[in-house]
């Protein structure tokens, strides 16, 4: 079969919406478009509300939660903000708020904001594969209000041991939030077996629509809403629920299969193996079952990532880089640096995110394109002079 272009391997950031998801969504844009209503509404309101609650049930079931523990939001970033600021502000206390050095910016910046409000943010270190150092974390948790530790890292694919981390939180009696966006539907998670109080879930990373997400809030956890308005979502989030997107989100959750995950794992390992055939290339993050099924991240020494990204784009291969030149702040990847990687390793790092539709042919194409770019750029690099 001829390969379809573009070869899109930027799935850690955004995914293509599944056509079956779109089909489901259209109905709630064109037929049942009323505001999801209460007990005394007209029948279209009720139908919309029914769809909303059905979606809530599906998502709750996926993580072993009760439907009333699922709050719909505008996505990952809002869920993280609501989880972190909402619980800390509702606690009425001032004190430590804990996270790790490899979190994504909505978590890190929420902590920064809390720091300005008089709280004490602290970031736990990670090891060379990106696993949070539990000894340090445990120490930091003493007397803390809340901690937020991501489930899966989007850049280097590290899957944290949420069970063990949850136990640390329980021991220290600290509220535990986890951004599970990159692990949701890829790694099993059951809130009945893990001591986690708040869990961020995202739709846009699992072939659902963007701009919608959810926050699991364990029964009994108090949250202060971030926005004011007529109460919706159990009083935690005003604003009309985006029924089409929520329905699409729930559909996307249903569509991911064990076979998809097994295939992605196989292709991930294949891609890793062939990329590491390129000389002076280093794998970032762990191998095997402790790495998410769809993430590959390698550093090419002597080459800068923005150049790789643009040259790959010319060949219709889309990926992401941890290089400073590419970031708006001109800063290198904080994740690679936190794992003890050098600046050069960070600038030369590329993230390849697979999807359930990624093919072996695409994997080989990616390798071929990257190998050529790396060879070309090393030939003019002052850092990489082979004698």
């Amino acid at each position, binding site marked *: 079969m001829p390969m379809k272009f573009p070869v899109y391997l930027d799935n850690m950031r955004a995914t293509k919406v599944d056509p079956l998801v779109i089909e489901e969504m259209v109905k709630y844009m064109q037929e049942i478009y009323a505001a999801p209503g209460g007990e005394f509404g007209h029948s279209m309101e009720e139908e919309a509300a029914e769809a909303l609650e059905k979606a809530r049930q599906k998502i709750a079931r996926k993580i072993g939660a009760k439907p009333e523990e699922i709050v719909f939001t505008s996505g990952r970033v809002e869920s993280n903000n609501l989880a972190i600021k909402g619980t800390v502000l509702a606690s009425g206390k001032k004190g430590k708020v804990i996270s790790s050095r490899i979190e994504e910016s909505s978590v890190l910046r929420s902590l920064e904001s809390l720091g300005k409000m008089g709280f004490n943010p602290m970031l736990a270190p990670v090891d060379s594969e990106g696993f949070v150092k539990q000894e340090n974390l445990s120490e930091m948790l003493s007397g803390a209000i809340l901690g937020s530790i991501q489930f899966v890292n989007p850049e280097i694919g590290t899957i944290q041991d949420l069970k063990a981390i949850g136990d640390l939180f329980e021991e220290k009696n600290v509220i535990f939030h986890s951004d599970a966006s990159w692990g949701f539907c890829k790694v099993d998670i059951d809130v009945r077996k893990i001591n986690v109080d708040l869990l961020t879930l995202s739709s846009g990373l699992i072939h659902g629509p963007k701009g919608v997400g959810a926050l699991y809030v364990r029964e009994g956890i108090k949250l202060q809403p971030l926005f004011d308005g007529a109460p919706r979502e159990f009083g935690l989030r005003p604003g009309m629920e985006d029924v089409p997107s929520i329905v699409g989100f729930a559909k996307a959750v249903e569509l991911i299969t064990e076979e998809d995950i097994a295939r992605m794992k196989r292709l991930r390992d294949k891609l890793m193996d062939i990329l590491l055939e390129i000389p002076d290339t280093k794998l970032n993050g762990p191998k095997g079952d402790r790495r998410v099924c769809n993430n590959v991240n390698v550093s090419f020494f002597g080459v800068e990532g923005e*150049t790789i990204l643009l040259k790959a*784009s010319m060949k*219709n291969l889309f990926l992401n880089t941890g290089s*400073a*030149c590419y970031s708006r702040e001109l800063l290198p990847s904080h994740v690679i640096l936190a794992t003890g990687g050098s600046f050069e390793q960070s*600038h030369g790092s590329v993230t390849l995110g697979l999807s359930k539709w990624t093919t072996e042919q695409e994997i080989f194409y990616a390798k071929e394109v990257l190998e050529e770019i790396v060879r070309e750029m090393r030939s003019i*690099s002052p850092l990489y002079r082979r004698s």
Partner: protein
Amino acid sequence: MEIAGGAKELWKRVGYTEKVIDHFMNPRNVGEMKDADVSSTVGSVACGDMIKIFLKIDESDRIEKISFLSYGCASNIATTSVMTELVKGKSLEEAKKLSFKEIVEELGGLPAIKYHCAVLSIAGLRTAIAKYEVKKGRRPLDEDFVMTLLKGVLDPMTGRDIVSMGKVKSVSVHDGAIDIELDMSGEDEISKVIRAEILDAFEGLDVSLNVKLKS
């Protein structure tokens, strides 16, 4: 220039002109020069922005040949490529006058966030010329010269040169020995990186260099 279908949109988004892309995809005067009279490395591995300039100067003090190596982004490559075109065949005096603005202009513009690349290519050119003049004995190896080279060394956390960042505490030159004192701790990764880059900047000069860090 061939750009695969759809790719042009990307350049618009990142704000690169077609000329920038042309020089990025087909850099002029690129590669190591074996018979160079002088070479100069400026920039920082830590910033992901580094170039090495090679010059061959003829008897009438004109730039007979110029080439470069690059470790950096598209605009690093494009600005340096255009710079080499602009000064090739020019006298050293003329070349010294080239400004980063002329490079930006020649490329038909550059995103403001990438201006530092044009500045770096000028720093590479000027330090190479300065080193040549010192090697030929036409210019004294003095504090002024040392500061010129230090302007090509970047602080990785800001991307600005260490002189304008106020990180150079003092410079003194006596009998071919250079003492540089930096206002930096000396303990952290960044100080180590900057120290290594200063040593790079003086590569090829017959001097004894002593870089002191505040410890």
